């Protein structure tokens, strides 16, 4: 008869959850589930539709037309040296990624209560798959942005200075995704506990857009209230994104470092919160 000591058990279930929750190895073991969920989302969204995946481009194009008409022509916000179409499209594409990524992950517990209460897998898989879905959609929209940019360079003789900032663009996208995921994780816990918070979330994100230079360049804001917009950690990311791609944007390294620190802190806090609360929430939702 073998006598086993504590160390020889493969797994242990206790009442306390560690703050770190899932081990990285376990997440990796469930990578197929993540891919499967992304695939499922695309199949569900685009099978039995006429335009299929073209819908991914339809929404930003319609938004673009509206913005160019309302803010460019009617209100007349100056977009500097960047043509309005490129200016708004770059803002819309990045904002959509943030907005969709956040909204989709912020309902993780509510939307998956059923499956979470029937089977175990690392809970983080669900928000990660949602974010991945929206990242792929973002890539399609980014291609659209590049095509429009190419059109302006070739046919309109627009001069886009190639700066080292272009290399930074993927990092800016990563930061945007991380902020979206972090806020999503945080609010997924909050909306599961206090259901009415979901109303606050959708209202809050709409208001947040006005504090982010999506519709206007930061230079358009008068000096004395510019700090309000600059307090938003998304602001330097958006400005740097435009600067890297289109050659015009107003951002300092200090502001970017501020965004980076904010992102890292928010990510750690929300990840810990999500893991710690995740197991308890199953009793509640």
């Amino acid at each position: 008869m073998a006598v086993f000591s504590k160390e020889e058990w493969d797994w242990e279930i206790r009442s306390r959850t560690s703050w770190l929750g899932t081990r990285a190895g376990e997440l990796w073991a469930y990578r197929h589930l993540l891919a499967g969920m992304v695939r499922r989302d695309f199949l569900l969204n685009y099978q039995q539709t006429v335009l299929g995946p073209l819908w991914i481009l339809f929404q930003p194009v319609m938004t673009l037309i509206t913005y160019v008409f309302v803010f460019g022509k009617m209100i007349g916000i100056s977009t500097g040296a960047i043509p309005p179409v490129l200016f708004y499209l770059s803002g819309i594409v990045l904002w959509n990624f943030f907005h969709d990524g956040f909204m989709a992950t912020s309902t993780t517990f509510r939307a998956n209560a059923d499956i979470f209460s029937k089977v175990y897998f690392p809970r983080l898989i669900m928000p990660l798959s949602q974010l991945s879905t929206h990242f792929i959609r973002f890539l399609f929209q980014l291609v659209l942005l590049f095509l429009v940019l190419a059109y302006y360079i070739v046919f309109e003789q627009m001069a886009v200075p190639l700066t080292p900032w272009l290399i930074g663009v993927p990092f800016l996208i990563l930061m945007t995704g991380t902020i979206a995921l972090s806020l999503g994780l945080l609010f997924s816990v909050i909306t599961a506990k206090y259901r009415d918070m979901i109303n606050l979330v959708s209202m809050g994100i709409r208001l947040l857009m006005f504090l982010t230079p999506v519709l206007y360049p930061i230079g358009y804001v008068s000096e004395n209230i510019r700090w309000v917009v600059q307090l938003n950690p998304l602001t330097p990311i958006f400005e740097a994104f435009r600067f890297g791609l289109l050659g015009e944007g107003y951002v300092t390294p200090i502001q970017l470092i501020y965004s980076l620190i904010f992102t890292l802190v928010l990510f750690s806090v929300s990840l810990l919160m999500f893991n710690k609360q995740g197991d308890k929430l199953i009793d509640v939702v």
Partner: protein
Amino acid sequence: MADTVIQVENLSKVYRLGTIGTGSLRQDLQRWWTTAFLGKEDPFFKLDSNGEQSIENQKQALWALQNLSFDVKQGEVLGIIGSNGSGKSTLLKIISRIVKPTKGHVRGRGKVSSLLEVGTGFHQELSGRENIYISGYVLGMNKEEIRRKFDAIVAFSGIEKFIDTPVKRYSSGMYVRLAFAVAAHLEPDILIVDEVLAVGDAEFQKKCLGKMQEVSQTEGRTILFVSHSMQAVQSLCNKALWLDKGKMKEIGEVSRVVNKYISGVQKFQLSQEWANPEEAPGNDRIRFKQVELRPVLNNANDPVDIRVPLLVKLALWNMADEVNLSINLVLFSYSGECIFDLPSENIKCSKGLVEGEVTIPGNFLNDGSYYISLYVVKDTSVPLFTFEECLSFDLEDFRGDIQWFGKWWGAVRPKFPFRLEQPDLILQADS
């Protein structure tokens, strides 16, 4: 001696009743402060020194499991039985890592897969093929594994033709078959199954049980199995755990535990007796003295199942002289359907005690809950008194060799001889 693969120690789970959380953000913050930062016990949820809950908290708390400890060895098929709300599902959920215990721990060895529902991860809009993959991933398989078993899964489900049709167009039977087929091809070291056999047709149930039997016997897998069907538990499991209100009542060899469970939970209004006519049910013509139902058992500890004859005895005081009395015994199923109405002989009675007795034969009623009402009738036509629901009893199922575990149809379940034979003429297959 086989290795222990699951060790459960002092496992307890408390559910708070009523409000979600403590009810307010302020209380939540206060709780969070004391538990997370000061490292103290939850102020809204204290345990006293004995580990019992203080009185004022008991009202809002439900102990789904209380200090449960047991081991499961490799290759064991453990049936978990108990009435509704006894904590069976909570136990499975904790071992499946879906919910956290309040106290205690579970340790284990090997990969665990749980099947608490048929069709976890299925999506109505997706085709059968897509659903096999998604459901497989959710249950913990990887892509390579599913690819390898894909054909076997489809064959097991028997829906080859519809594999690329969205499952929303499946019949419910097809849906269940496909879902179970995925689950049946899991290869965990420990499989946790919760009452999934309640769905599906007879043939499919048989297939599922067969598959589970095969998995446990030939591959040495450990299975935890929750079921309300004692027949299924007895034929599949070699050990049983009886939970009662979150506590372990009994664990051990399956037939011993199951028999104890059945005789323990059967509820009987078996006998009623009145010493004097004034308090007895009845009216100025008739008073009941005694009603009694006695199962005719060979062994006093045997469960009362459908094979057991039931003896009904009654006694009543007749208050009037020279009446023709008869009594109708009417048996109702628990849902109120009348199963039969059995009249007694009609005899001329004078003032005094009247006694009667009748036996409901074994192998006649179906399993289920029943109650009996007695109608006292004068001159075979004038009702004198009705004694409603004076006796009630449960009959347990018994299947013997029959390898099918669905609910047996019918109000009654008689056992007439039913012969089958083959005449001498044997058809030769065309060669």
